[in-house]
């Protein structure tokens, strides 16, 4: 399977989808699914291969290369799978909306660009695909109009700042090493000075950090995730922002090299520590922001920021355990966050666009399957044992404790408790409690929505029970980075400093469940009563009012809200305001009076002559 063919299918598929959409929407839908499936198959067939093709010999004197390695295979696989599921999910979600051809084509384009990013073998093609990804994402975020426009704008500007920093970085690299291929750059970096590496790292870090929405570059993410169409939010949160993770892995382990990286920064405050502190802030602050959200997608969006913090925390430690944890958490987060966004999408689809947590409730009766997958997703998000999130978080925590970073571990663990709070709010306010009257006749989710959600929820549990499957892939990535290989078993990890054995947990949980279930069965008879048949101390139960969801964590919110100002966001907004004000100020020099304009001309001339006569600098 050649990589060029893969990219041609990906990019051509996107274009052709649009063209077919002009012909017939059914044809287009089928084609889009087909293309995304084909991509999954093609990427899967690349497993374990190491290809390296130069597909464009001379782009302004630089050659563009595609290559596949273990790392890029993992990302490509995740991207294509999520892309495929998202396309399937869109089939019903997008039904009846306008400009669907544009939507599908852009969705496939984003998918193709992501594949391009991770399959790139040199920094320039990475950048090119990165930019294509950025602008097509912008178009998709803005797709809904209204508040989405501001969200899209924020996304674009921040991501553009990032990618321009990356451009500057990669061109500096080109200037010093004369090549942009990973191998060449890595070879050059071996002999580069630490200050130089630091500068390059910062430039690239801004780009990757912005995409990955780590603090302080997170401001774009919450509005963008919440305003984008839900299937795309799934991609956005699940894989697209993880391109930043890919970037960090790439630059730390492939380009700069771990040893160089660990040596960067001042003596007291090495760069990797800074990075992990940033990761910790990224966990803590957004978690609390998520607790306070009333919009389901915004809640998930802030949660995405927080989870990105775990990944960065894992990567920044640079041990085989932590990197495995970070990478595994990326995979897991992709799975369960995409799942949760799809859940919101389903709810939104059935309730005609409601995602306000204050006005939903009780949907478990109407959409049991959706609730079940949401529960599994939430468990993964929290990291309940026997779901995938547990394993990856366990790896990260263990690193943090063993590396004697208790404060970071504290943040990570405490963040998990915050996660429980907002996850439960999410579940409760949508699915639990009393069903509002207006949703009495809600139908179950359509097949094309249930299918991708089910697939993802199966993966959540599968990776939680058998973490050895993904961990062996990740372990090979670890070894390719030159890290000590982990002792991976199918059930977890063998180690002297605390092993992980999911079979034990599984057995214990099953035993516990069995016992309790038996005890329960042995008890008296159980009758099913209506959901609204509640204990109300003798009072009549009012319809539509017997629900506690507004201000779910009001006391806590009252307490912490004064300290939780997103000051980075307000800083950016103020910055944007300043730029606008500066523009409005500067344009006042164009006064409209032509005498002034003539004056500028003479002034400029006089200034030139004056300077030359007095100082003669020229």
């Amino acid at each position, binding site marked *: 399977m050649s990589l060029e063919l893969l990219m041609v299918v990906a990019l051509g598929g996107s274009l052709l989808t649009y063209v077919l959409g002009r012909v017939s929407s059914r044809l287009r839908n089928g084609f889009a699914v087909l293309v995304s499936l084909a991509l999954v198959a093609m990427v899967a067939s690349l497993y374990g291969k190491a290809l390296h093709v130069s597909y464009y010999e001379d782009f302004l004197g630089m050659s563009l290369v595609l290559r596949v390695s273990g790392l890029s295979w993992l990302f490509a696989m995740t991207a294509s799978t999520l892309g495929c599921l998202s396309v399937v999910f869109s089939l019903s979600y997008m039904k009846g909306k306008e400009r669907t051809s544009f939507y599908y084509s852009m969705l496939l384009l984003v998918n193709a660009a992501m594949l391009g990013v991770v399959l790139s073998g040199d920094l320039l093609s990475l950048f090119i695909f990165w930019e294509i990804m950025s602008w097509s994402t912008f178009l998709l975020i803005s797709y809904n109009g209204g508040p989405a426009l501001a969200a899209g704008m924020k996304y674009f500007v921040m991501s553009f700042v990032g990618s321009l920093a990356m451009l500057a970085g990669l061109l500096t690299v080109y200037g010093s090493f004369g090549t942009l291929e990973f191998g060449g750059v890595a070879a050059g970096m071996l002999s580069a000075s630490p200050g130089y590496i630091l500068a390059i790292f910062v430039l690239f870090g801004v780009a990757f950090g912005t995409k990955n929405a780590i603090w302080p570059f997170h401001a774009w993410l919450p509005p963008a995730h919440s305003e984008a169409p839900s299937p795309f939010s799934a991609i956005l949160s699940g894989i697209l922002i993880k391109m930043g993770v890919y970037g960090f892995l790439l630059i730390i382990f492939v380009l700069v090299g771990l040893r160089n990286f660990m040596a960067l920064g001042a003596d007291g405050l090495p760069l990797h520590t800074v990075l992990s502190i940033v990761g910790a802030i990224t966990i803590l602050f957004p978690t609390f922001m998520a607790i306070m959200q009333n919009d389901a997608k915004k809640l998930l969006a802030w949660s995405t920021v927080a989870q990105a913090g775990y990944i960065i925390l894992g990567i920044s430690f640079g041990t085989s355990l932590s990197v495995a944890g970070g990478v595994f958490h990326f995979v897991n987060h992709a799975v369960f966050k995409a799942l949760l966004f799809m859940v919101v999408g389903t709810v939104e689809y059935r309730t005609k666009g409601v995602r306000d947590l204050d006005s939903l409730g009780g949907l478990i009766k109407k959409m049991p399957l959706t609730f079940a997958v949401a529960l599994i997703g939430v468990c993964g998000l929290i990291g309940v044992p026997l779901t995938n999130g547990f394993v990856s978080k366990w790896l990260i925590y263990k690193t943090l404790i063993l590396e004697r970073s208790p404060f970071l571990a504290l943040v990570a663990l405490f963040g998990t408790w915050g996660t429980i709070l907002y996850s439960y709010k999410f579940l409760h306010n949508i699915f639990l409690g009393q069903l509002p009257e207006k949703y009495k006749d809600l139908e179950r989710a359509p097949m094309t929505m249930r299918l991708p959600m089910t697939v993802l929820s199966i993966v959540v549990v599968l990776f939680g029970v058998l973490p050895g499957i993904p961990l062996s892939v990740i372990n090979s990535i670890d070894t390719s980075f030159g890290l000590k290989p982990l002792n991976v078993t199918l059930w977890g990890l063998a180690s002297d400093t605390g092993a992980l054995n999911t079979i034990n947990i599984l057995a214990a949980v099953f035993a516990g469940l069995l016992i309790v279930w038996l005890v329960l069965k042995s008890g008296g008879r159980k009758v099913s009563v209506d959901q609204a048949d509640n204990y109300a101390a003798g009072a009549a139960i009012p319809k539509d009012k017997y629900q506690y969801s507004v201000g779910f964590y009001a006391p806590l919110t009252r307490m912490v809200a004064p300290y939780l100002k997103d000051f980075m966001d307000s800083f950016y907004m103020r910055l944007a305001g300043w730029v606008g004000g500066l523009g*409005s100020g500067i*344009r*006042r020099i*164009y*006064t*409209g*009076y*032509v*005498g002034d304009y*003539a*004056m500028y001309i*003479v002034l400029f001339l006089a200034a030139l002559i004056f300077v030359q006569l007095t100082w003669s600098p020229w």
Partner: protein
Amino acid sequence: MSFLQDYVYYIGAFGLVLIGLFIILSRRNLIKVIIGLSILDTGINLFLISVGYISKGTAPIFSKPGLVAEDMVDPVPQALVLTSIVIGVAVLALALALAMRLHKLHGTLDLRKIGELKW
């Protein structure tokens, strides 16, 4: 004194140029500004001619025998001035036409009041 004699043409020419510039910069009536442009052009034309002047030279025309090339003034500036004058005429005509239209549309020739396009 000899300085004045040597450079009187330059001084005169650039005097006109500066006057023209001053008018353009300080007047707000469009017609006056156009007049200023015209004066500016004239000054430059004079300057061009004086650049090519040779003391006690003759016109560069071999209209009668006995004229020698060495005595003639430089013909090039004269040709340039011819072009420059024509360009000046063209700009002047166009400026006046525009001024007419402007007056018709805005009802004024005061350039300060004609500032709807700004910022």
